[in-house]
């Protein structure tokens, strides 16, 4: 006991404890962070090429094969269609930057024209869903209420009530739908990117998809209303509980400290 306490008081003890804590934190994070999966290599260095095939050869072929037939690093693109390319490249997911449980959305590095060229090239490899027309995803003629019901049946289980996203297994996740172009939402439903299942017309009709997009526009757009005030991330009781503790009970404790504090005494001079 005494020996231990003597050692504990060594001036370097605090430093050792700090280093240990850092190492443990880092180690834990490494252990819990999703495991890497061999996926696309760093391909972002190539940018300059203009046309579909050339773009493909440089930006995509290293993983998807020179003819889009797929390799161990990336799936075959034969038959995925223009919609898949428009979604994957348009949301910046492709080309993938680093291996991980899931390829995240990031800044898109291609111009619209380049994406169209890439899409045209991939579409030529095999027929697949085409890029939707604006009329297909605009909210004209959509039923927001029905869209909400469809969203809760088909989408909310992964993307949350209002599309704030959620967790999947082993570090995968359903991303938030905030700020996602309606076109890309339509394409995602049609093509089922990564681990998302697809919702072809046999599963969700064209009108269904339109309704869903209109609903999302109403509840998850930039100007969506949250009548009650701060929506606290739209995450439900967990963020409400945190807010209640920190700002509710926190404010009340601050008030209680004021109520119970001694009043300043007059200074005798």
């Amino acid at each position, binding site marked *: 006991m005494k020996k231990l306490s003597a050692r504990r008081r060594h001036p370097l003890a605090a430093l050792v404890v700090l280093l240990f804590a850092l190492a443990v934190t880092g180690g834990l994070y490494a252990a819990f962070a999703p*495991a890497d999966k061999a996926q696309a290599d760093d391909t972002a260095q190539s940018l300059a090429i203009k046309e579909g095939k050339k773009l493909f050869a440089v930006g995509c072929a290293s993983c998807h094969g020179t003819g889009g037939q797929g390799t161990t690093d990336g799936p075959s693109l034969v038959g995925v269609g223009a919609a898949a390319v428009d979604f994957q490249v348009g949301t910046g997911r492709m080309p993938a930057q680093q291996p991980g449980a899931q390829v995240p959305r990031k800044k898109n590095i291609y111009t619209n024209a380049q994406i169209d060229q890439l899409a045209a090239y991939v579409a030529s490899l095999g027929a697949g869903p085409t890029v939707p027309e604006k009329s297909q995803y605009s909210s004209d003629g959509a*039923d927001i*209420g029905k869209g*909400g*019901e469809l969203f809760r049946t088909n989408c909310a289980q992964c993307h*949350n009530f209002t599309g704030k996203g959620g967790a999947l297994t082993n570090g995968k996740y359903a991303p938030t739908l905030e700020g996602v172009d309606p076109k890309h939402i339509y394409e995602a439903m049609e093509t089922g990117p990564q681990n998302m299942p697809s919702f072809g017309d046999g599963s969700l009709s064209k009108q269904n998809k339109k309704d869903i997009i209109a609903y999302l526009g109403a509840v998850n757009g930039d100007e969506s209303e949250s009548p009650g005030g701060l929506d606290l991330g739209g995450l439900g*009781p967990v963020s409400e509980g945190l807010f209640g503790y920190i700002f*509710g*009970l926190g404010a009340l404790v601050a008030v*209680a400290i004021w109520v119970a504090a001694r009043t300043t005494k007059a200074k005798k001079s």
Partner: protein
Amino acid sequence: MSNETSATTTRRGQAPRGERIADWADGRLGIYSLAKSNMRKIFPDHWSFMLGEVALYSFIIIILTGVYLTLFFHPSMAEVTYHGSYVPMQGIRMTQAFESTLNISFDVRGGLLIRQIHHWAALVFLAAMMVHMMRVFFTGAFRKPREVNWLFGFLLFVLGMFTGFTGYSLPDDLLSGTGVRFIEGVILAMPLVGSYLQFFIFGGEFPGHDIIPRFFTVHVLLLPGIMLGLLVAHLILVFYHKHTQFPGAGKTNNNVVGMPLLPVYMAKAGGFFFLVFGVISVIAAIASINPVWAIGPYRPDQVSTGAQPDWYMGFAEGLVRVMPGWEWNFWGHTINFGVLIPILVFPLVLVAIAVYPFVESWVRGDKREHHILDRPRNVPTRTGFGVAWLVAYFVMLIGGGNDLWATHFHLSLNSLTWFVRIGFFVLPVLAFIATKRICMGLQRRDKDKVLHGRESGIIKRLPHGEFIEVHEPLSQEQLHVLTQHEQPEPLELGPEVDENGVERKLSRSQKLRAKLSKSFYGEDNVIAKPTVEEYQEITSGHGHH
């Protein structure tokens, strides 16, 4: 007092009107005798003593706003198609419970505010009870004569959890409906009677048409009624026992130092009610809670990710989430341990903290009254146990929100679940050890401070060139506070044989008690506090530094 006032008579030779009313009441209710002992009752001042008040006032706020909500809420599961003013819900089928909740939010002016005050106050109510309970725990305020009141408080906390659960289930929205479905699963998991209970409670197959009206009765009548009774008993006992106080100058176990109920506490406590109500109103003005319109009506085939209960049930949710999927099948019967074990562990963890006061008093064999609060550091085992309990609770809260932790900290859901599975057993032990050591360190520092004074941070150079830090001696009050605590000796079992050489019979419980007592008060758990002799030797020996 009455003598004084009755002496001041009015022109017509009558006592003043107020006094006459009081006389009338006294003749029937005996209010003077009641007021005699209570009107100038002394209450000590400390912010942490007001946590219970926060809970009390939020309970009153909940009752006030709750009564208002019942004026508009229809606890019915009859299905309707919504045609109200919230566009994204138009044309959707829902129960009347959900529809009326939408109407309260969008068509009753101020209805949304009252709903939000009601729900925020509920979260604050339970949070305040929890923190209040921890304050009582760590300062040892549960000791004799307050054990019964500790239990009343504990029951209020548990009943509050269930009142909260039945309350947030009432709107019949998709989130709370998922919680009700969970309850159905829990009931079904009960061995022998599960499926019968489920059909009785739900009035048939899930979800049926009865559960919301039944929850309504439980939520607005049954549970709050019991809670109100317990609350009154809790308050009467607080008055009767008189409040505890922290050690300090003039504060002894036989007195209570503070200011009188009339007028100071009337104003402070009364004012505090308005402060609490005001703060919660402002929160309800700026932050949304349970936006059922965004969540949608319940349908058993729909669900959203991030399906969590309110925070006070999050701990139970965590237990259920991290439980491995064990199930037994035998002789045509099934036991679903994946549900059964968590819901058995859940009350056990709560009961562990509830019975602690009785365990401590048994171990210590202490039958005296205690009105001076402990400083948590001076009771390392209790403090360690409390921290360990909180750590277990918090680990399970992480488990209950594991999906949100995973997405917001970019972790793997599965690894996080494993962390909670192991952490629930390991981390409380580590926390217990660490807390005890910290307490010992603080005790050691207190001893240092008493004997050598406070480190002032002033470096002084002595004539012969030595640098020393000036230590300021403590005031008598500080010395008193740091040395007033008791240091009980651990229990001794005594010799194996009595004076006649006959082997003494020691029951197993006596042995256990001695062992526990040692771990509470043994040498490793206490730093002997400085004695007067030590102090005088040091102070007289070589001045103050």
